[in-house]
């Protein structure tokens, strides 16, 4: 399944400055593994202790994966996976 991944500015040095990359995979975790093979170092920026890193939000078609099945969230052909660093204040 072909998935478009939108890369945030802060991670673009790892993806040769690409803003969008197309990856194959049926789950979010697979996409991240495939990305890490192609762009080494990106996985450790996204995953900590088997879950999405606390300060990184990952969305599948605008839905936060924490509210789906986390890294096991399944994907369909044409889905868009957006990575966004968390915003915070307070």
């Amino acid at each position: 399944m072909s998935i478009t991944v939108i890369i945030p500015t802060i991670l673009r040095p790892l993806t040769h400055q690409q803003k969008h990359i197309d990856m194959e995979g049926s789950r979010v975790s697979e996409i991240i593994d495939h990305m890490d093979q192609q762009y080494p170092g990106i996985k450790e920026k996204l995953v900590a202790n088997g879950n999405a890193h606390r300060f990184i939000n990952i969305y599948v078609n605008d839905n936060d994966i924490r509210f789906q099945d986390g890294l096991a969230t399944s994907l369909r052909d044409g889905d868009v996976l957006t990575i966004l660093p968390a915003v915070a204040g307070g």
Partner: protein
Amino acid sequence: MIKSLKDCTVSGPFRTPPSPFAAVGFSLNYQSGRLGLKVVEADDYADQGTFSFVFRAPQARLVNCVITGWSDCDQPGAITESMMQAACGLMSVHGRSTGAIQPFGLQYVSTVTTALALQGGMAVALGNLRGLAVSDSHISMAAAALLSTSQYIADATSTSSSENLSSADADHSPAPPFISADGIVFELETLNPDPWLRFWTQLDISRTLAGKGWTAFLLRYAKAIAPIPGELTRAVSKLGYADISRLCADAGMAICRVRTLDERMDDEHFKSNWLKGPWVFDCAVPQPELPLTSASGLLPLSGLTVIESCRRIQGPLAGHLLALLGARVIRIEPPGGDPLRGMPPVSEGCSVRFDALNRLKVIREIDIKSPCGQEEITEMARHADVFLHNWAPGKALELDLDYADLSRVNPALIYAHASGWFTDGGEISLRSPSLPGTDFMVQAYSGVAQKISRTCGTQGGTLFTALDVLGGVIAAQGITAALLNRQLNCAGAKVTSSLLGAAILLCSDDFQNRHDFFDCVPPAQSVLNRVFETGKGKIAIECLDDDTLLRLMQTLDLSAGDKSELWQRLGRSFLGKTAAEWLVVLQQAAVPAAIVIEDLNDLHGDPRLKPYLEIGSYTRVTSPWRFQ
């Protein structure tokens, strides 16, 4: 207060300030007294456009402190609280969540300006005592207003990804705050998604919808909006507050009613909080042999070293202000750097929102949880002048980095804790689960939210992070006072400030009106304080007295009549010209008016703001102080 600062005096026209500075005079009187400074009334002032006061410290030269409305330029404008909120973008940020750009009912810019002006005076005196050639301090209300919105300005003006959320096209969900079936208005808070999901699942909200609500909830801090799906607000509106509270407790989510100012004033420790002010100082025993830092440099805190271990807004802003005053600030970040460096929009490898508060600091990556890291921090504190943190309650003790630990290696240290709930009565104890000390919870608890809603006709406070910003300002102010005391009396100190303390400052006019504890008069309410639509753009009008309102009505050819009808007639009249055209007309009539900034990018077009804005990959707000 710092009792040993009693020989320092602040003299100015507090009882009879120039009318545009009534709130400044009132707040300066209150803040000076709470710091332990002697307040001396001086009943003369030069003109209506300036508020001047003199700060005197023993053995230091007199410091003339001048507050103006705008920068020193040839296009001065009217000076009132609402003019500043309108022209400097605060109304715009506040209006994003409510859908209506309007004043937000606090003497906010006046209070921030006052705190910065007093800090400037103390810093110059301290610089003098340390042998620096700085003298006199100038600050404008416009500079203070821009400083308050510096993160939003950074976000909006970033060349990498612009933020352009006008209130007209944003989704204006009425929440938060939320309303229960029995009519209780309340805020929810959690910093983690798990309690959020558990809470909404109990209300039969789907995971997907709860997730969309979480995404919207997170936008509060970054964008000052919270377009929460209506299904969520409707779900809580079917339950009574007691039931919602129980569900919150089960889910681990915090809940706080939007309390009234009267409720706040009935709190057990309120009177003591109000009398003592927003700081708690714990001064060490004077030690005449304390080694104090020698000074060189052009700014009043040049030569001083600050160690900062802070996250988010309040603490980092305090460190930023000390850096703007010349201190060398070393910021401790976790290994790999603060994750918020990646918070969009990012320019030149760093979040512009993050950079706006941290660009002047030296970064040191240390794992504060490791014994090795704690040892390294202790060693850094040995040679520092200030240690500043905003850790959760109890964490400093857990890390062996409490005041007792660090003052043991450095008795001259000023140890500062910028907290959420701390007052002179200690950490406020609230229901379980404990309330996170975040801006919106403190607004709800402290009466600030109700004060804002009273003016705006909304249910709660503002999503502009008003308390985080003022909390950062008073933290830096308290540190400067403690540094001055150290120079004068050879004593280190612990300084605790809080968001709740910032809220005390913002409600001080209401508190004084009810209790009349101090010999000072709060500013009177304006007789007209509104934003009107014009043929093109919005215009803010603030009439401080009846004479000004009369001039406005004469200018518009309106006769006196029923007040509610008057607003409507005014509204219709303003549609006849553009905001820019009205500004000229109203300036000639000496009616305070300002074109309302709706897009923060438009700040660049105002020549009165240029000295405080530096254009680059994003617009940086420069130092609010000018020293001679």
